[in-house]
């Protein structure tokens, strides 16, 4: 186990704990740079991981750090996507300007949702954001002059400063760069007074208020920041899918974003990225499994006779071809994580890392939390 010997306050303000940790991140970045050479076939899927990473980051700021759970983030993604495409294609603004304006428009929408949301807490806020998402879906469907309505809207490839990002490799690097920048900015905010105020609101609103945190201002700020980042993600998402239609930005997508932050691990930026990898890759894994599992099952059960193998293979095939399989698997995983690993993949990773760094002295109790039952007099 390594101990960092601190000799200056600067060390606690750095992005990384020490040089060794920084080198790991540099190595990770180098690995991601080389990835297009190694797995060219999966580049499009990995670009989606980066875009989902932005979405996860956005919701992580709101739900994981400020404690405001939203089920309306697919709507913000939709607003960002349509605004970006409308500004860049219909109005002919430069790509970067269009994306920045789309982010600003989405942030504005975030403020609009945030304002009434200031008076609500917990589940009621979640319901309000859900209602907002449904309203936005209707708007996207019916505001045909801007959105193209149900016919949808084709999205051209991105061209930034005259450079075309049409190829999969170029788009991959674009998404990677935006995600890295977003991670850096978010980390900066979180290690500043604003980030601390958000965490304070999450853990105890009343104490935050008594310490001078203006709840309304900081909650609105969290909504605006989160929505703005979702707007940027929306712009990239539009290019990724190539064709916008209102039925993409459904509540189911919002639930997937929430799944992302819960499965990744609430309250950590790592968690947002882990969750994004998980949620973006799960459909890929499911579709691979759809092809492979029936044949594999048939082979295993053919030990009991050719007829048995055939029957089992057909049954499994019928099961995995169910259209509802994917949301079902998502839901099941969400439930299992909440039951068995509430701190998500990142929490599990911390435990594994501690296990190896303290081997053979690891204690299970290290991560145990005391249960406290004295919140009864809590003021709300």
């Amino acid at each position, binding site marked *: 186990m390594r101990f960092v010997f601190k000799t200056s*306050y*600067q060390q*606690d*303000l750095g992005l990384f704990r020490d040089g060794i940790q920084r080198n790991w991140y540099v190595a990770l970045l180098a690995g991601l740079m080389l990835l297009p050479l190694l797995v060219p076939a999966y580049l499009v899927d990995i670009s989606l991981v980066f875009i989902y990473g932005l979405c996860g980051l956005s919701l992580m700021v709101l739900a994981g750090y400020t404690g405001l759970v939203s089920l309306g983030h697919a709507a913000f993604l939709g607003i960002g996507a349509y605004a970006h495409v409308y500004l860049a294609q219909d109005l002919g603004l430069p790509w970067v300007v269009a994306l920045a304006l789309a982010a600003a428009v989405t942030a504005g929408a975030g403020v609009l949702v945030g304002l009434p949301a200031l008076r609500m807490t917990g589940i009621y806020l979640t319901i309000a954001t859900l209602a907002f998402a449904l309203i936005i879906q209707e708007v996207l469907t019916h505001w045909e002059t801007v959105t193209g309505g149900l016919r949808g809207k084709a999205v051209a490839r991105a061209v930034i400063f005259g450079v075309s990002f049409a190829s999969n490799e170029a788009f991959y690097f674009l998404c990677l760069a935006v995600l890295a920048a977003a991670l850096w*900015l978010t980390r*900066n*905010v979180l*290690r*500043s*007074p*604003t*980030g*601390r*105020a958000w*965490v*304070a609101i*999450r*853990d*105890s609103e*009343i*104490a*935050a*208020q*008594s*310490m*001078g*945190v*203006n*709840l309304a201002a900081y909650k609105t*700020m969290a909504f605006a920041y989160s929505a703005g980042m979702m707007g940027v993600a929306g712009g990239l998402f539009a290019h990724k899918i190539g064709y916008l239609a209102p039925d993409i930005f459904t509540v189911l997508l919002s639930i997937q974003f929430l799944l992302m932050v819960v499965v990744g691990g609430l*309250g950590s930026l790592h968690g947002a990225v882990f969750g994004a990898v998980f949620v973006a890759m799960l459909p890929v894994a499911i579709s691979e499994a759809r092809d492979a599992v029936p044949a594999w099952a048939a082979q295993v059960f053919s030990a009991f006779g050719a007829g048995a193998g055939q029957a089992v293979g057909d049954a499994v095939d019928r099961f995995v071809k169910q259209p509802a399989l994917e949301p079902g698997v998502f839901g099941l995983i969400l439930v299992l994580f909440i039951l068995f690993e509430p701190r998500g993949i990142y929490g599990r990773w911390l435990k594994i890392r501690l296990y190896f760094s303290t081997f053979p002295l690891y204690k299970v109790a290290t991560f145990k*939390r*005391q249960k406290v039952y*004295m*919140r009864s*007099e*809590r*003021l709300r």
Partner: protein
Amino acid sequence: MTLFRAEDLAIRFGGVQALDGVTFEVEPGSVFTIIGPNGAGKTTIFNLVSRIYDAGRGRLTFRGEDITHVPAHEIARRGIARTFQNIELFEHATVLDNLLLGRHTHRRSRFVEELLFLPRVRALEIEHREAAEKVIDFLDLMPYRESLIANLPYGIRKVVEMGRALCTDPALLLLDEPSSGLSVEETADMAFWIKDITGLLGITVLMVEHDMSLVSAVSDRVLALNYGRPLALGTAREVQEHPEVVRAYLGG
């Protein structure tokens, strides 16, 4: 010149008159204690001062300014910090982060600067850190600096909460039952700290307390309440021996 003044405070919760005609003054540099049986309205006074409740009647004056109607988040900026009876710390943050949040009223960086973490933000963060380290030093919290609150024992949390309030650089510190849940030794430490807070840091203390040994040890003035009405006001000894106070506690 009084630092803090409550005049004729009153508040109703439905059919319960929680406070009725409470008036007191706190002199700068003193320790003013409010005692009373459960439900007497002690914490309600705190919640009125920190503007969590709106006073039904009466006036609160701090440094000569009327604070009866300022927004709740503005109270800390004016120089009033508080702790809570059941501890309201930020459980999933470290002790250091909790203390740094206490510096929130001294925030001078703008959001855009923070987004880019400009050198100015870094310099301000160091400034906040130095202020927090002074409090850590004062309250002997060095061993716990990096611990999550959720991992700390109750007695330490109580001290951290007081430290967070001190980080705001208050002129008036409201302590809501600083000794509740503490052992005898920890309570004795608390008495020393309260004396140091007024003596060394020059901060005025307004506290609610049940432990009479602590009350007698530190208080300059004591106010006894029952059913929201003031019973007696004076030194700890005078109030303890007041016949109305004895009756309120022992019945009869």
